[in-house]
């Protein structure tokens, strides 16, 4: 009895979470341009018209470029920061760690306003660069957290074993450390891409007159324009974000991290958090 009740409850929660998304997906195939119920008929005509929408295409292209560049920066800087914090004991190490993770906890509106004031103060024109800088602030964290979590649950003796067998620092990094964290870096990068691709708040303050895809959606919904096309785009964004997030979860689940009987290098297996795919440090 309790089991049945529990299942019904879970089903209700899942429905509550997914119903609005299903509704949008359905509206994307709506024949009419008026969102009324029941749907007068089904059609794929909005897909064609959406793809011919020049403003939408420009927004999409801007979003893709911003996400790719921000992700690249995040992978490079995030992994370097993780290696440094993990490997060395230096003055201000805890502070660096805290400052890196801060943008995740900080409301986006504060990050956005701060960057906006900074760019204005430095008379920096809004461009792709300013968007990328804004996105990189929180993208770095996802890569950093993933890489650091992986490093922390990797046996320290692996690095020692490599050096012991004759590998210098660079060889050890190339053949042991990097392969051990590679999947964590890819997972962090995929999450960073997904975060960047649908970011609205920080982008609002750093994009100026440009439109990223989420800003285009936001603007059209606010003005009540081109709603059928918005539905199509939203459906597309959902698909584009679900794929990397799912991949990221896959990658962090089977890490092949060895657990020996001595109890070292044991890690908790909670790799299901949506934002930080590996247990946060």
């Amino acid at each position, binding site marked *: 009895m309790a089991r049945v009740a529990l299942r019904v409850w879970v089903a209700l929660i899942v429905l509550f979470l997914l119903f609005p998304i299903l509704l949008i997906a359905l509206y994307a195939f709506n024949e009419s341009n008026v969102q009324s119920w029941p749907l007068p008929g089904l059609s794929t005509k909005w897909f064609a018209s959406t793809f011919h929408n020049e403003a939408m295409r420009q927004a999409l292209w801007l979003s893709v470029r911003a996400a790719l560049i921000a992700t690249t920066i995040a992978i490079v800087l995030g992994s370097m920061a993780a290696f440094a914090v993990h490997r060395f004991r230096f003055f201000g190490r805890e502070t660096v760690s805290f400052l890196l993770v801060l943008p995740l906890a900080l409301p986006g509106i504060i990050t956005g306003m701060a960057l906006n004031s900074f760019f204005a103060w430095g008379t920096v024109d809004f461009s792709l660069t300013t968007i990328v800088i804004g996105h990189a602030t929180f993208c770095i964290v996802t890569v950093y957290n993933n890489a650091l979590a992986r490093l922390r649950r990797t*046996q320290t*003796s*692996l690095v*020692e*074993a*490599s*050096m*012991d*067998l*004759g*590998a*210098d620092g660079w*060889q050890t990094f190339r*053949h*042991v450390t990097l*392969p*051990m964290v590679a999947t964590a870096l890819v997972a962090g990068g995929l999450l960073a891409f997904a975060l960047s691709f649908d970011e609205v708040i920080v982008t609002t303050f750093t994009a100026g007159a440009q439109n990223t895809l989420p800003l285009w959606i936001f603007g059209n919904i606010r003005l009540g324009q081109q709603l059928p096309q918005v539905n199509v785009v939203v459906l597309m964004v959902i698909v584009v974000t679900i794929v990397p997030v799912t991949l990221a979860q896959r990658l962090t689940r089977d890490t*092949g*991290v*060895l657990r*020996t*009987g*001595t109890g*070292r*290098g044991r890690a908790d297996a909670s790799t299901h958090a949506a934002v930080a795919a590996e247990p946060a440090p």
Partner: protein
Amino acid sequence: MSEVQPDPRGAPAPAVSARGLRKVYGDVVALARLELDVWPGEFFTLLGPSGSGKTTTLRLIAGFERPDAGGVALDGVDVTSRPPYQRDVNTVFQDYALFPHMTIAENVAYGLMVNGVGRRARAARAAEALRLVQLAELGARKPIQLSGGQRQRVALARALVNRPRVLLLDEPLGALDLKLRQDMQLELKRIQRELSEDVTFVYVTHDQDEALTMSDRIAVFSTGRIEQVGTPREIYERPANEFVAGFVGTSNVVARDGRRCTVRPEKIRLLPPDAAAPDGELSELGVVREVVYLGATTRYVVALDNGETLVAMRQNDESEDGAASEERGRRVRLAWRAQHMTAVDGFAAADAQREHEEVPQ
């Protein structure tokens, strides 16, 4: 504590030598001025309780740690400031430290790869090393697919593939169950014999049976210093002090003529209380407090009339011989030969050691 001992085989320099080695972590002295010489081809064991400095010594020899004072020399060459990858030693780690993303063959060939050995030679030597540890057919597997005992062998093969002058083993059998551990002890001895005289084994363990089973010589560690260095027989029969007597075997300490002395349980015979003490033997009267049946042997804890306690051990090979007289609460006479008694007070320790070294083996 230990003096530099001459090499029995007349090698020009010790395979490993530590001079005044000191290591401090915070305010804990892990090693206090350690002196150590290991001769080429020896199976040398560092034995001691956890925190006694034996693993620190091993890590200093491997180069994972830098000493706060003193130095390490390999074959007479000072390597104190060299990183691990420039020392001709390889290590078998306690947790094996196999690379999880590589196959067994790749793990074993790793040392050859980073040292620039060609692909074909690499494969051949890795296969040879795997044959040595009897895992020739598992090269294509990943470490996670192996049992603990198999991983242990892979770790051994990987450390041996570079043909190091010195092999360091950090409690390599610690994670295995008893039966497997005993098999591997013999296996390690076989492998060492097969590898010719060249490879020196330095082995860390807290298990006294393991140390006695495998070693040519043993260094007994306690709180960052060496209490005694000697063959298993010397360590067991002539412990230098009370710590060694207690850590290797049962501490059976009694006072005699104002000195603290120890006698091993199996040297003590149990006699009826009215029996006369045999000529040239020491004897004491007492009451059996505890009888512990151990299968092959039985342990008797005897409270002596003078207030001291001794443990006696006897083989269970004569079932009819006075079983009744050995039960709890019975009075017994304990007898042992004078030469089986060793003084273990600090002052006498050096004496006993020196005296024994003069006796030819």
